[in-house]
């Protein structure tokens, strides 16, 4: 297998989870950028990844940057259009509310509720305890419910 083939296989394996994780943390614009950056670093350092057990987690950390923030404004026009036409029930305040959560709480809540990750998978990504993930999930969801409204199905707010 050539270098390029091996890398392509790696990207195939890693990208779906990595992209979701970074979009959960940084939103769809910076998250995608972070994913490309992290994968381009992986291209330069394929040797480093050989023995890594959990490459998604490793590359997730590579993609971290203190200068990235979860997207609030301006929301790209194309995303606004998608939301308004295809997903009109998403409150406009949801994205700002997500940006106000801590990085970890937001990552947990978007990966679990949005992308359907299991709590154990998120725990492995963030290298924290599953009980911490559960805690973040509940707190963040409660907080978002307070800020956005909407019931939890039992009529309670």
């Amino acid at each position, binding site marked *: 297998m050539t270098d*390029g083939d091996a*890398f*392509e296989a790696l*990207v195939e394996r890693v*990208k779906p989870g990595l*992209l*979701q994780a970074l*979009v959960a943390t940084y939103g*769809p614009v*910076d*998250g*995608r*950028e972070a994913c*490309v*950056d992290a*994968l*381009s*670093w*992986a*291209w*330069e350092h394929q040797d*480093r990844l050989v023995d890594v057990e959990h490459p998604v987690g*490793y590359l997730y*950390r*590579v993609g*971290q*940057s*203190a*200068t*990235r*923030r979860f997207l609030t404004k301006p929301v790209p026009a*194309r*995303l606004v259009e*998608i*939301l308004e036409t*295809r*997903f009109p*029930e*998403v*409150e406009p305040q*949801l*994205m700002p509310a997500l940006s*106000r*959560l*801590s*990085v970890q709480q937001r990552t947990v809540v*978007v990966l679990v*509720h*949005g*992308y359907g990750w299991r709590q154990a998978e998120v725990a492995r990504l*963030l*290298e924290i305890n599953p009980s911490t993930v559960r805690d973040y999930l509940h707190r963040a*969801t409660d907080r*978002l*419910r307070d800020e*956005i*409204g*909407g*019931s*939890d199905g039992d009529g309670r707010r």
Partner: protein
Amino acid sequence: MAMDVVEQIRQLTAAFDEFVVDVGVDEVIARGEGTAPTGDPGWNQSRREVIDNGSPRTRLGLVAAAVLLVGGLVGALTWIGRGGSDSTDSTTPMADVVESPATTPASDGSAAELASPLTAMRSRLTNQADTELFVVQATAGSYWRLATLAEFDGTTWGFPQTPLTQPGSPIGDGRDLEEIRQEVRIVNLGGTLVPAAADVIQASGDDGLRWASESQTLVKIDRDLVAGDVFEIVSASPRSELEDLQAATSTEPGDPIYLEVPDDVPAPVGEQARQVTAGATTPFETARALQGWFQREFTYSLEVQPGHGNSAMESFLRDRIGYSEQFAGTYAVMMRSLGIPTRVAVGFTSGVDEGDQSYAVFGKNAHAWPEVWFDGLGWVPFEPTPGRGAPGAGN
């Protein structure tokens, strides 16, 4: 009734999936070769250094080139210089240090610490309370500072995202400088930030040490701290006499960030600040009035939710109970809302005085405090957290 938030999040991510253009291998390789632009110029810059140089020692080429190399030979001290025109160090933003992937991605702990040192402090206070973190041999006791944080975004205090303008005139000009010589020996302190008294003017240790002058942070860039690391540091700060403080104005900290608060800071924060300091006529009186109010009216406790963002501040001002994370963060936001440049410092109190000029510092000594700018005198620490004497002029 609005759709439940869980379902809204699911739909939001579906919208993201439609919006986000898939990432292809060609694009990744093109960026790797430096032929495609990236949205994060700081990241790309340091990555270019990786491509150009490759060797571990120059991996953070941006940082190494820009920041005065500190020490190298044990025992050789390098003059770092102080802020202002005579300084030979350059103002490397911590944002560049933080965002460049180092020889290995920083451990989860050090990555978390660099993202928000104020938040990371809590685990030292709780999980490591009785663990000896480091020992300082010093000519005088002091708060040992890890970093200063200039940017508040409504959720966290952190390192500024863009380089800061330095103050125009050197601080402490013509004043007596109080010097503290330290030997810091690491025992159980993790992360990459080296504690030292304010303000560092000389430091030596090993090749991986860098000084980020605008955040006044001494940082290991090649690896995390390990037990046995020793750093020799000289710090100096102007001795501020009471009458100088009382007479000082507070208008020229250099960068406007020190007055910035996000638009969505809750109204009670500013209102409370004005109320408490209504009688003060000078910046120093204002700083002291606010400090005294917190010390008198609030209770210290670790049994509160961590956090120092907008909603945490509202709860804090209402319930009047918390620990230094909330005291320092809230004090700084309140001072900024009053138009007085203030920032948050994170580090440790002086620890246990073991005699013989030796201070043992434990997790429970982890601490945060505000620093207020006074023209001609620099950043002066205050102590709003109850139960502590003030570290400097506040006394």
